[in-house]
């Protein structure tokens, strides 16, 4: 009875224990930091290639939400949002799925007082810690490439962390639905489609209306909007809607993921 009552409440300490386990597990691979670097360079390469390279072919400024923005400045915040997504998915999709279904790490974790929701929160926190490193470094690169001012970069930083948290929760929820490794093809496909069509490389207003509506339902679009508007210094009230979407997605996906972890491990 007593243990049930204790276990019924959410415990930050127990959640933190799971985060610590992840940090320990990371130390076993010697190339772990090289892999973190590898995750960072991809959006940076895209920024240099499409943003600056293709940007050099574009003489006019892009008109975005009534502001005239140079093409590199337009693409850079989108690459930051993308790297938030990539960072979040790097721990919450394949790696999480392996612990859930293959190595059965959570079966071991859940025989201790740790509860599924603490596991879900821990995985999001762990992802956010790594994502913070990615986004921070990427923002420094953006400042060095002169695509954002230092002041707006400081404000864009928490926005990018929010994006990491939201995508971590989305990644967890999606991974609990996967039946096997082959199902991840769908996730990779979706990730690439989001990357190419979230108003990332050209404004979403250019798309045909049905495509626009579809895009506005997806999370990366909101992350891109939020981060880009902050980066160009346009603090419109609509940003609250974009941020609200990401917060709501985080909450819903966390609850869903915790339930699914419960079902998978106990049933």
């Amino acid at each position: 009875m007593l243990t049930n009552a204790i276990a019924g409440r959410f415990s930050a300490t127990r959640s933190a224990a799971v985060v610590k386990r992840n940090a320990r597990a990371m130390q076993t691979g010697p190339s772990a930091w090289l892999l973190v670097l590898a995750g960072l360079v991809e959006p940076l390469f895209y920024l240099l290639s499409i943003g600056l390279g293709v940007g050099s072919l574009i003489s006019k400024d892009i008109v975005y939400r009534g502001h005239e923005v140079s093409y590199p400045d337009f693409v850079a915040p989108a690459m930051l949002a993308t790297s938030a997504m990539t960072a979040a998915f790097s721990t919450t999709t394949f790696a999480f799925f392996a612990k859930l279904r293959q190595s059965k790490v959570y079966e071991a974790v859940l025989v201790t007082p740790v509860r599924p929701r603490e596991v879900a929160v821990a995985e999001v926190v762990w992802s956010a810690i790594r994502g913070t490193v990615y986004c921070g470094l990427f923002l420094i690169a953006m400042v060095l490439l002169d695509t954002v001012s230092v002041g707006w970069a400081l404000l864009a930083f928490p926005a990018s962390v929010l994006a990491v948290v939201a995508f971590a929760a989305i990644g967890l929820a999606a991974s609990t639905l996967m039946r096997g490794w082959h199902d991840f093809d769908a996730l990779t496909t979706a990730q690439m489609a989001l990357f190419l069509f979230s108003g990332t490389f050209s404004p979403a207003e250019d798309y045909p209306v049905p495509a626009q509506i579809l895009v506005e339902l997806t999370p990366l679009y909101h992350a891109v909007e939020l981060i880009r508007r902050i980066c160009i210094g346009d603090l419109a009230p609509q940003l609250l809607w974009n941020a609200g979407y990401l917060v709501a997605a985080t909450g819903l996906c966390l609850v869903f993921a915790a339930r699914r972890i419960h079902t998978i491990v106990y049933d």
Partner: protein
Amino acid sequence: MVQPSVAVLERHMLLYRRLWKASVFSFFALPYLFLVSIGAGVGGYVGEVDGFAYLDWIAPGILAATVYQIAANESTYGVYTDFEWVGGFHTMRGTRVSIRDMIAGWLMYVLVMVTMAVVAFLAIAWMFGTLHSPWVWTVPLICALLALGAAGPTMAFAACIRNDGYFELLTRFVVIPTTLFAGVFFPVSELPEGFRQLAYASPLWHGVELSRGAMLGTSPAWPVAWHIGYLLLWAVAGWICAEVAFRRRLAS
């Protein structure tokens, strides 16, 4: 009795028949998505490059990049698995399949994969109206040569390593940057000095120049024979490296 190398090809095709669904996206859908997002989407802002609409200019580049990526990516885990986990190559060693047959069989398999993707892409490019020259019929041959130049060295790499984590590094630090900076999305003349030479050194840039010439009817940056010769160099050197690496791996 079939040729041993054909038997090796047959084995890989048999496996592919069970796994083909996973490749549908990267072979057929991804290049099309890039064409729409960058070619059509960003193209609206770029206007013309070398006198062609950006969509037309970028289509041959995306095709060559797709070929390069398929050839390289197929030859990572595809080869590694048979050494490290399944032991396919070790088993072949016990038959009359020679090391050369193993490599020839694998390269033929890569060529089959690449050609499927090329034909599908050309059909889409034709629907988009981006084909401007009768030389387009040479594109599958150009792509086959590029694929050999990319697959050979990757096979050698896959036979050398003992931990599959290195593939992540290969993809991130070699394959993706090559794709992004070898004249696929913008002319290499926009690159700073030094980086431009890196682009010239990659097989992809030569494949891009040749396929762009064949699809648009323009002449490539260098004489055609030089581009072809350089790609042949990669293909032959890659094959030799693969043979050395296979021999060393199978001796242990």
